[in-house]
């Protein structure tokens, strides 16, 4: 079974100014529809939709200090998205970032809570990277050894990860906090030492960790790597045509498995960063991942697997997260944000698909090898 998660139209192609304008127009229309539908949904169930939207904006950017929170939320989203792009390039489907992030954060927590100081911090970050890589590595092993489609294995591993890391929190020799003053029913890890935390930048009354800058740097690095380096080129060939890749000397199994593992490593690293920058008050808790894995994946999908485009998208998704914190006052459940988010994603996926279909109707696709006649491609 060969399958790829690829946003339609992510391949290069001729684009005129007119078609770009059309695309932008479609995007705007789609977003407007998504937002309108969300508002309608709130209104129909008797909620104050105007207040909801204002709360979202207040909570994400308008109120003092919220910008910093949005950036803080956006950083791990961005890192996860970068990993997702790597697997997409390789032609693989990794939807298990939520689990890989949890495992990475757990390993980082284990290292970090057993020591203190900046060296331990670095060790923890590395541990997160490795933990995520190993978790995704299981899926890679299953795929290349036993032909298990990675879309299924990564998904199953998410659930196993959540249970597994939950288990870690029940044993003190693993992650459970062994502080004698702690009330018994609380299942968290020990708190991170102040020396082992990621420092914060303070600008204009906003506060965000260094990891934000790190995430942006990583994005640029990944963009360069994907588009300019020979490694990125080989990965692209692998993703587009594995047989051709094999013929020219790209070891399909090794390249594919390492892409998968690397993607998990990014997710795990994001988890480590989250932990060391203050998520859950520097403690590892059940459900630590908190959907960052899922949303990071969605960021990559919406950005059509382009690293630099992930930055604005991650900001928007981060804004949705921080904005939702202000919803309690409106009486509307936070789950509406999930609805808004998925509607937005769906809305943002449709325009490029529509354009791609229209383009196919007009130009003949590559001449099939058997005859030299052009054939029209229509999904009927």
């Amino acid at each position, binding site marked *: 079974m060969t399958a790829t998660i690829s946003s339609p139209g992510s391949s290069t192609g001729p684009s005129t100014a007119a078609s770009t304008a059309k695309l932008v127009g479609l995007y705007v229309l789609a977003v407007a529809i998504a937002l309108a539908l969300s508002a309608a*949904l709130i209104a129909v169930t008797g909620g104050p939709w105007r207040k909801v939207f204002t709360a979202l904006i207040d909570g994400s950017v308008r109120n003092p200090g919220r910008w910093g929170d949005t950036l803080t939320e956006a950083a791990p989203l961005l890192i996860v998205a970068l990993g997702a792009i790597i697997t997409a390039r390789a032609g693989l489907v990794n939807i298990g970032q939520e689990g890989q992030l949890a495992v990475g954060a757990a390993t980082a927590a284990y290292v970090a809570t057993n020591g203190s100081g900046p060296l331990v911090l670095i060790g923890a970050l590395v541990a997160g990277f490795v933990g995520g890589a190993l978790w995704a590595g299981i899926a890679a092993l*299953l795929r290349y050894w036993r032909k298990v489609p990675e879309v299924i*294995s990564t998904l199953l591993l998410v659930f196993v990860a959540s249970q597994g890391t939950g288990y870690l929190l029940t044993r003190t020799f693993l992650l459970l906090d062994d502080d004698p003053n702690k009330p018994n029913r609380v299942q968290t890890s020990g708190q991170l030492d102040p020396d082992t935390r990621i420092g914060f930048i303070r600008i204009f009354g906003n506060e965000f960790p260094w990891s934000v800058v790190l995430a942006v740097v990583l994005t640029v690095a990944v963009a360069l790597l994907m588009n300019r380096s020979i490694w990125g080129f080989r990965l692209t060939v692998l993703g587009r045509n594995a047989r051709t890749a094999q013929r020219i000397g790209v070891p399909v199994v090794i390249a594919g498995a390492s892409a998968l593992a690397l993607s998990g490593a990014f997710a795990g690293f994001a988890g480590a960063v989250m932990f060391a920058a203050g998520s859950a008050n520097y403690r590892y808790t059940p459900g630590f991942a908190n959907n960052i894995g899922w949303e990071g994946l969605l960021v990559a999908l919406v950005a059509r697997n382009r690293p630099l485009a992930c930055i604005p998208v991650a900001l928007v998704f981060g804004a949705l997260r921080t904005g939702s914190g202000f919803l309690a006052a409106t009486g509307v459940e936070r789950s*509406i944000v*999930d609805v808004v988010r998925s509607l937005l994603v769906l809305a943002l996926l449709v325009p490029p698909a529509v354009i791609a279909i229209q383009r196919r109707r007009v130009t003949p*696709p590559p001449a099939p090898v058997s005859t030299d006649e052009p*054939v029209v491609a*229509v999904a009927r």
Partner: protein
Amino acid sequence: MIAVVAAATDVFRDVLSAEAMYESAMRFAIVLAFAAVGEWVAEKAGTLNISIEAMMIGGAYTAAVTWGAFDMVPVALVAGVTAGIVVALAQAHLSHQLTIDQFVVGLTLNLFVLGLALFLDSRWKAVTSVVKPTRIPLLADIPLVGNALFGQPWPMYLIVPLVPAAWWLVFRTRWGLEVRSVGDNPQSADVSGIHVNRRRREAIMVAGACSGLGGGVLVLGQISISGYEPGHVGLKGIIAIAAVIFGGWTLRGTVVGCIVFGYFFALQQTLPVLGYRINAQLAASLPYVVALLVTAVFATRTRQPRALAQPFVRGLA
């Protein structure tokens, strides 16, 4: 070492002789089977729908709400089926008409429907009581498996006609023939005059109807759980897909797979009742670990529909 083996066999014996075990296993298995049979049809057509999850959730919530409002089980089940079809419509048209990647659509639909169900549940709480089991006299008195097979709430029995109906649909009708051709070689089917993507969409709708029904049955038929809780479905959709792989894409194998997985879901519930202390997380993750192992063993089967998960656009062979 010997002590461990002895202990294990003891556990084994206890588990196998507990009637509650079989009852619980069958209940899980039947719910899984609704979704798995539906996805089996869809995969025969060459589609892989991780949005089975969303179809079940949609069916579960809609059935719960409808039952709360009208207090009529058949109406609730029909509502569940409808919800499943609606989700399937979205998957079908986004992936096999607008050509958006089917995994992307599936994932997004899962998140969307889950969020929607959570949200609506918070506004319009779904209150359900439970359908009482219907015991078939005599047969239900068979030791061990009697209650499991013949003492279930009546919606569960809907699986009995559904399985042969699905088989008949795929192997004894023209529609089924075309679906099978579309899953194995869509180019040939296209040249023969078959509407490839239309058949695929229709197969996905069948999956939606079955999974929606499964979601409804899940909510209405769970004896020990009262009311609708989000997260009931809990990735059972992906287990259904694993069951299809386990069964080598045969219907019989898929049903067997559902029973196997049902067994492992039941373990989580019944072991504590039997007096065994088992780590909560281990028990909860068992079915999923088993699913991983199962797919690892069975995914290399060559009876997979050759065009599975490969989108079809005419002209691009």
